């Protein structure tokens, strides 16, 4: 009996030793206390625990009666491509995105003894009313970087912030003075809006994160857009002016030239004028010959 128990224990220990560690998604920098109108941030981070992950989807919920959600910053995120940018709806901030070629822990070159968790998003809140406010990760799943997209469901985590009844107005500001980086191209593919001309772009900002991107097509109106975007001018005669703004107001601009040379109204008038002169000269010559 003792032998059986011993063998069982050995097997159990072996099982535990070889068990794959499950990645963890959690909130960090959650303050224990806050004050009315005082801004603070929490980071949603992922620790791949030695494995390699490449995607995440899920949400963070909070107590909207005691906290105001100010903004989501993605500048320091390890997520490279957002499928759904972090967006708040009621008490839920949802997001999803991927990391090309995967993430297996952040290396700090100055201390390589341990790999660090990666940041998903920084959420900025402000105290709204006194009480114990909840901030929780909810229904978060990550995908393994294994070529088949194995999904691992994360355990929900709950954190609390006690908001006091005293006001201590303060802003959390990211001193970002660097412009975002922006790249864009126009493509036509039968799998994308039935082959229409579509603008695709990638805007990144390593400091405060990208706030929004605007487009002006030719003399048209400025509009905030998301990638991919179907161009209004499918003839591609218009100049495309693209601006990417970060959370601190820094801007990056690129221009995409039209495929067909743009003919301005002035140029049209000049061409018409020259044509009229030519016709007039010919008319005069014909009259001269006849006379």
């Amino acid at each position, binding site marked *: 009996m003792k032998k059986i128990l011993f063998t069982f224990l050995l097997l159990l220990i072996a099982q535990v030793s070889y068990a794959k560690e499950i990645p963890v998604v959690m909130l*960090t*920098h959650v303050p224990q206390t806050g004050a009315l109108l005082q801004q603070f*941030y929490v*980071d949603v*981070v992922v620790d791949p625990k030695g494995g*390699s992950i*490449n*995607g*995440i*989807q899920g949400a963070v919920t909070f107590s909207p009666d005691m906290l105001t959600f100010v903004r989501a910053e993605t*500048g*320091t*995120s*390890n997520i*490279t*491509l957002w*499928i759904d940018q972090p967006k708040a709806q009621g008490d839920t901030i949802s997001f*999803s995105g*991927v*990391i*090309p*070629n*995967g*993430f*297996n*822990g*952040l*290396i*700090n*070159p*100055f*201390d*390589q003894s341990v790999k*660090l*968790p*990666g*940041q*998903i998003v*920084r959420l900025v809140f402000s105290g709204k009313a006194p009480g114990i406010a909840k901030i929780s990760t909810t229904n978060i*799943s990550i*995908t*393994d*970087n294994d*070529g*088949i*997209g194995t*999904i691992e469901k994360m355990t929900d985590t709950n954190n609390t912030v006690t908001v006091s009844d005293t006001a201590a107005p303060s802003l959390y500001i*990211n*001193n970002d003075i660097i412009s975002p980086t922006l*790249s864009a*191209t126009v*493509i036509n*593919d039968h*799998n*994308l809006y039935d082959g229409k001309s579509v603008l*695709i772009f990638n805007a*990144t900002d*390593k*400091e405060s994160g990208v706030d929004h991107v605007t487009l002006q097509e030719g003399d048209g109106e400025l509009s905030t857009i998301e990638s*991919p975007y179907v161009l209004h001018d499918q003839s591609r005669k218009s100049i495309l002016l693209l601006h990417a703004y970060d959370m601190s107001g820094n801007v990056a601009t690129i221009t995409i030239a039209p495929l067909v040379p743009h003919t301005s109204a002035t140029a049209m008038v000049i061409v018409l004028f020259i044509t009229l002169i030519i016709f007039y000269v010919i008319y005069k010559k014909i009259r001269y010959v006849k006379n």
Partner: protein
Amino acid sequence: MAWHAVHAITVNTSTNIYITAEVDATTTTPPDNPPPAGGGGSNGAPTPTPGVPTSVNFSGMAYPSSKVVIMQDGVIIITTVADPNANFSAALSGIAQGSYTFSVYAQDKDGNRSASFPFPIYITSGAAVTIGGIILAPTIDVDKSEVKRGDNQIIFGYSVPNSKININVHSNEEHIVTTTTSALGAYLYNLDTSVLEYGDHTAQSRAMLVNNKVSAQTNPVSFKVSNENKNKPAGCGTIIGDLNCDNKINLVDFSILAFWYKKNEKPPENVDLNHDGKTTIVDFSILAYHWTG
């Protein structure tokens, strides 16, 4: 400028990769604290030093005269060519402080790519970081998608010249075979499939260099053992994730996938990467795995 080595540590003993970080001792105080969990923000992060150049240097081995591609956060930033002995090196400068994922891969003479080697790393302003000793995975391919049981399946690719190549064939029973690369880095193995069961199999390879250093492992290449031979199809649709058939997996393919995700309709067959009739995070994950920039 006096450079002061702060750390020089081998981070992966199995693949001999080392990472060193140096800062200019005359102008910069070596940072004491690691970046905050998540690698961003100002809490605990070294103070940026304006005017001091920040650089990342890459070096390692690929295949003789092969194209070597370095990506920064999924975007190709450097393309270089390895020398006839398969050595490569590249330098990147002028980048801002922050966390980045650098990935390195090589492309052989047949156009096959190695598995990407990702390095998520925090770069401090004013630091010169070296990522050295990278030994890229070999390339691997097979000549038939289906092979008649008993016939030979040719497994081939490129790696560092004169290296031993271990090929693992994953079946119910794992088979390990070895061959060596030529002076040009090419290898080829005729696998007798009579030892394999009928059904699906995958093969992966890894190089062992003459100095006992070991490369990363290839991504798996799959084939089927059946009653007939079928050559591997070529052309559009054979590269997983290449949705617009331009031989690359990049932002264009991501955008096509994002379009079908937001449309919330059954996607075309070539867009539905896991063939479940919908576009989900799983399809994006498969795309991210095969990303080439």
